[in-house]
Structures are given as structure tokens and as C-alpha cells.
């Protein structure tokens, strides 16, 4: 074997340039494939994490008909023992009940359709955490006047503040970001700006009868904390639901669409309002892992705990089939592109092999003529091919590791419309890479497969070779 390795290794460097070009093509293919795939998967992950962890959850328990027909009629009986039983399941990190429906909200002469999400204020902290979305700062005319009177604020800063008139913010960081002041101004003026724009706000207590209203909806309805909103809708089994609810707090939802229509209240208040005693519409379950296997096992375990066939557990991709299909479609087109890349590289390798075989026909003939078994010759050629593939593969993988690591921990920060949109949704506008996983090792499998495929040709040639013909050259 040693002899074979020696000859194969030296043969590899016989045509140095060709070996380098072939290895380099494998190197670049592997490198690009890994980086591209890592970004792709990382971005999906990021999207899924954001969407899932604060909107749908990984798994939801729902009435079977709820997904197609999200009515209060399609709710199910809920008690705390179900939630605690589910939270006992391995990998479950949070279980959050929701009762969701639509109503009309009105105040004075203003009326608007609103989405009502009833929550458990304590449990919800582990999920969408509405408390962190309470409006803390608001730029009003009054606030601007106050700022002006405070003096100390340069005109250009005041201009910037005025540009954001009417906007509200749930954190000082967000306000700072939106104003986009120069570092120096930021340091000097921020404390004063924060002081002048700060507003008081409130939250729901456990059995609160009040509501939280999203910022845009509140300004449409012209309500503030302490005012009341009349809600009118359809309750359980067609009863009409009407109630008057005091506004406890204003929340700022990054997505303008949702900010236009969201009302939150406690589950007991909602159950009373809809006349749906003891019922909820969904139980949102979050997990530590999100592999298919984990999702499936947890889902199965939850289904066992459910009392009847009218309630079922659904995974995030059953709940978001369109998003799931989009990701799948995008992922497949990414894979198709890599497939094309590898296809081209394969022909590069194959071309090298073709030339190698035709150049060395005579040499193969001499080797077999003087007594080398074809089997041994085949082994040498195979080792050469493995070297050829392995050099590019190993270098490509090694070169991609630091990049993946770096951009995993320090992801690219996106700018522009896409970034704004993502931030509006409350996501980090970043493009992280995916941690090493099967996609990484698969490159090795693909390259190995290509090498095997390309090696078949010389092996077949050697097998069929007639010594005298080969010797003629």
C-alpha cells in the first residue's frame, strides 16, 4: 500500500498546474456551497426563530377546526393542569394560553375592527412579553414645547425630534436609534429628551377587567390611559358580546399592521366577555429544539395528554403552511444552484481524468506488461483521485470554518428596506450563518460522490485495457 500511495502522490504532482486547477475548482465549489448554504439556513433559522418564538410558537394546541375557521366557537376547554402537564414534557420551555378573536372597538364616534388577544399576564412574559412593548416615550407637541423651554437643546437636534412628531417608543434604545443623533449630541441631549418625552403607562394585573390598546389603534380611537373602549362582537355560540373596558396601557407593536388593530386583555375578562367560560382558542408551546424529530415527538406526547379528538397539537409549519412552503421553495432553489455549481465542477474533474487517462495510456500498458496487476493499478488511480478531491474538499471546508464562526457570532447587519421591515417586526435585522450541521458534512459526501463517479472511467478503461494496444501509445 505504501508503494501505491507514493506513486499516486507523485503522479498527482506530475502535472502540477492541472492538479492545482482541479483542486482549486473543488475548493471554490465547496467553499461557496458551504458559505451559501450556511447563510441560507441561518437566515431561515433567524426568520423561523423570530416568527415562531413570538407569534405562533413551535406547537399550538387548537380546536381541530380553529385553523380554518378562527371563531370563538372553535375554542376548547382549558385548565391549568393541562398546561402544567405539557410543561413537564422534555424540551418544552413555555406553555402560554391564548384566547383570540375579533371585535369592533369604539370610542366616541370612532369605530374600528380589532383583534383581541386574551392572555395570562404572567405566563405571557415567557412568550410575546407585552410588558416590554408598553409605550414609554412619546414625541408630542407638548413634549417638543417642553424641550424647547428646557433650552440646552441645539436646533438641529430639535429638528430631528420634530421630524418624529407623533411617534411613540417602547424603549429608550429604540428612540435613540430612530432619532439617529450624532454621538456628541446623543450624549448631551438624550437625558433631556427622554425626560421630556417620557409618558406613564400601566399593565394588566392577573384578573384585570381592563385592556391594553396598541398605539395606532389608541390614536385612531382617540383614547388614552383611563379612558374606556366599547367592544362589540360575537360570543360563544352566537350570543352577542358587548362590554365596556377601561384602558390600562398603550403598547407599541413594531408591525404597523398589527399596531392598527390590537387589543389585549386577561383571559378571565375575555371569557366573561365572550361568554366562553373556561375556554381558550390556543395553547402556545415553545421548545428548546426545533428539529423535525423534536417537534414530532413533543407533538405526539401532547396529543396523548389532550382529552378528546376535538383538540389537536399542530406544529409551526402546519400553522404557517405558506411560510413553510416559501422556505422550502427558497431552500430548494438554493440547492438547485449548488447542484449546478457541482455539476460544472464535476465536468472539470472529469476533464482532468480524461486527459490523465489518455496521457498515461502507454504508461499503464508498460506497468501491466511488466507485471503489475490491474487491481493494483486501479488502486493507484483511485488514490490519486481521492487525493485530488480531498485536497480541495478539506481546504474548502477549513477555509469556510472561520467565516462561518465569525458571521455566526458577528452576523452581517442588514440595511435598507428589508432591514426596516425586519426591525418593524421587532426582529434583529441581521443575516447570521447557520451553525455547523449536516449541510457542512454533506459537501464531503457530494465531493466524494463526484470523485467516485469520475474514477469509474479510468477504472473501466484499465479493466478493459489490452496491453499491446496500450503499449502502442
Amino acid at each position, binding site marked *: 500500500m505504501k508503494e501505491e500511495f507514493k*506513486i499516486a502522490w*507523485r503522479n498527482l504532482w*506530475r502535472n502540477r498546474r492541472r492538479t492545482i486547477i482541479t483542486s482549486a475548482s473543488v475548493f471554490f465549489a465547496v467553499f461557496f456551497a458551504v458559505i451559501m448554504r450556511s447563510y441560507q439556513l441561518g437566515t431561515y433559522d433567524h426568520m423561523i426563530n423570530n416568527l415562531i418564538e413570538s407569534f405562533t410558537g413551535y406547537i399550538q394546541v387548537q380546536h381541530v377546526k380553529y385553523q380554518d375557521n378562527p371563531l370563538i366557537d372553535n375554542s376548547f376547554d382549558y385548565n391549568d393542569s393541562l398546561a402544567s402537564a405539557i410543561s413537564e414534557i422534555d424540551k418544552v420551555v413555555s406553555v402560554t394560553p391564548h384566547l383570540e378573536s375579533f371585535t369592533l372597538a369604539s370610542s366616541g364616534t370612532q369605530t374600528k375592527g380589532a383583534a383581541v388577544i386574551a392572555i395570562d399576564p404572567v405566563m405571557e412574559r415567557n412568550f410575546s412579553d407585552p410588558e416590554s412593548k408598553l409605550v414609554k416615550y412619546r414625541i408630542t407637541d407638548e413634549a417638543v414645547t417642553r424641550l424647547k423651554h428646557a433650552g440646552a437643546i441645539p436646533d438641529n437636534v430639535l429638528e430631528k425630534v420634530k421630524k418624529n412628531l407623533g411617534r411613540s417608543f417602547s424603549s429608550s434604545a429604540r428612540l435613540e436609534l430612530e432619532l439617529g443623533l450624532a454621538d456628541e449630541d446623543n450624549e448631551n441631549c438624550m437625558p433631556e429628551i427622554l425626560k421630556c418625552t417620557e409618558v406613564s403607562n400601566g399593565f394588566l394585573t392577573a384578573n384585570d377587567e381592563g385592556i391594553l390598546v396598541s398605539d395606532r389603534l389608541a390614536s385612531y380611537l382617540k383614547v388614552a390611559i383611563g379612558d374606556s373602549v366599547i367592544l362589540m362582537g360575537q360570543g360563544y355560540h352566537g350570543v352577542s358580546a358587548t362590554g365596556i373596558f377601561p384602558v390600562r396601557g398603550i403598547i407599541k407593536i413594531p408591525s404597523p399592521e398589527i399596531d392598527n388593530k390590537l387589543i389585549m386583555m386577561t383571559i378571565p375578562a375575555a371569557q366573561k366577555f365572550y361568554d366562553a367560560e373556561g375556554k381558550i382558542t390556543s395553547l402556545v408551546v415553545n421548545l428548546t429544539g426545533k428539529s423535525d424529530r423534536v417537534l414530532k415527538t413533543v407533538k405526539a406526547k401532547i396529543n396523548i395528554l389532550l382529552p378528546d379528538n376535538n383538540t389537536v397539537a399542530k406544529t409551526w409549519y402546519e400553522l404557517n403552511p405558506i411560510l413553510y412552503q416559501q422556505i422550502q421553495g427558497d431552500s430548494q432553489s438554493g440547492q438547485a444552484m449548488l447542484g449546478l455549481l457541482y455539476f460544472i465542477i464535476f465536468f472539470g474533474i472529469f476533464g482532468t481524468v480524461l486527459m490523465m487517462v489518455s496521457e498515461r495510456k502507454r*504508461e499503464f500498458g*508498460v506497468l501491466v506488461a511488466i*507485471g503489475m496487476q*490491474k487491481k493494483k493499478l486501479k488502486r493507484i488511480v483511485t488514490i490519486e483521485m481521492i487525493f485530488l478531491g480531498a485536497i480541495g474538499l478539506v481546504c474548502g471546508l477549513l477555509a469556510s470554518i472561520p467565516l462561518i464562526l465569525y458571521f455566526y457570532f458577528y452576523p452581517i447587519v442588514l440595511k435598507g428596506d428589508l432591514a426596516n421591515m425586519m426591525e418593524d417586526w421587532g426582529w434583529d435585522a441581521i443575516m447570521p450563518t447557520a451553525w455547523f450541521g449536516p449541510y457542512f458534512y454533506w459537501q464531503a459526501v457530494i465531493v466524494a460522490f463526484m470523485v467516485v463517479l469520475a474514477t469509474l472511467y479510468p477504472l473501466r478503461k484499465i479493466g478493459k485495457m489490452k496491453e*499491446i494496444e496500450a*503499449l502502442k501509445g
Partner: protein
Amino acid sequence: MKVLELKNVNKIYNSDEVKVHAVNDVTLDFAEAEFAAIVGPSGSGKTTLLNLIGGLDMPTSGEIIITGTNLSKLKSSQLIDFRLNNIGFVFQSYNLIPVLTAKENVEFIMTLQKWPQKERDERTFELLNAVGLGDRIDSRPSKLSGGQQQRVAVARALASRPKFVLADEPTANLDSKAATTLLEIMEKLNHEEKITFIFSTHDPRVVKMAHRVITLEDGKVVSDVKLE
């Protein structure tokens, strides 16, 4: 003792609608330590005959027996091993493995035969010295002249002490001085090692040095002269 016997060997090529009787009813035998030249005009069948003797090609009819073994009875992989252990080859050109040094090329057959390293080394030095290349052991073929390459090829052919060495026009690509040197070395080794050499040639000066001259014409042996 006979190392090689040919009995009524025929080789007929049937390609391109023309039937070529390349080797026609050849019966010959070779003893130990012969130094035989096969001569004849171009197309007379020299290469074909040597290929048959070397087990690189199969006769259409007749028998080739090497120290008791009938070549046509061997399977192709057995034939390769048989060649490895019994026959040395020197081809017209590009004999050597380009990635191996002179020493490694000579060693190559012994390596295939799994000789211990020490014996391999001894034999290699002995032969490379004998062919006058003791100082070029680490040169790759591309760094050697054509004549030097052929000398390495002769050393390799002899390395594992085969029954005989076949050489098809070993001097065809050499100038006359290099050709004479090569032949002198072959003759010396033939004498020292008692190994039969069978070589084909066009070169009258080479023919002059042979101890036996077999002349072919249209595939037939027309004369077989032993000179002593």
C-alpha cells in the same frame, strides 16, 4: 535446459477485411543464457512474435511454453503474475515510470514481488553499477538521456532474475554510440547473469553482436543461425 519453446505458433489478424498472417507456423526453442536477435524487414512479424512470447498477446494457434508452463492455459491475472516472475521487458521507448527515480524504477519489480528492502537495495546498486549509472540513482527518467533510460530499463528487466528478457528494438531511438554501449551492457549481463536475451533490431551493428540470429520474412522463420 530449454527456457522457452514455440510449437507451430500462428498469429492471424483479421481486421479491415484483410487477413494478415503476421506469424506463420513458427517453431523455435531457446536455451538458458542465449543472446538472440530477431531480424527481418519491416512488417515481417518481429514485434508480433515478441509480444506472443512475452504473453502480451495470444497466438491464433500453436503453443508457447515457458519452463514447462503453457501460456495459453493462464487466466489474464495469472498471466500478469507469470510475466512479473518470469519475463523481463525492455520496450522501444518510455519504459520507465516517470515519477520514480532510476533506483525506484529498478526496484519496482522486486517491490511488486515483495523482496525485503535490504536485498532490493543490494540488487539495485549492483545492477545500476553494472549499467554504468551508479552515480545517477536518484535521477528521474526525464533527467536521463535516451540511452541512459534504456540502460535503466535493462537493469529493471534483469532485477528479479527472470527466465529471459525480451527487448523489441531497444536501440531504435538511440544513436549508434549509445546503441553499441547498450548492447555491450546487455551482452555483459547476459554473460554474468546467465539470463537469455531475445531482442529484435534493424541495426546491422547490433545484429553483429548477437550470438544467434533468427530471420523472419512474412511471419516465417527463414533462417536461424547460431554464431559462437
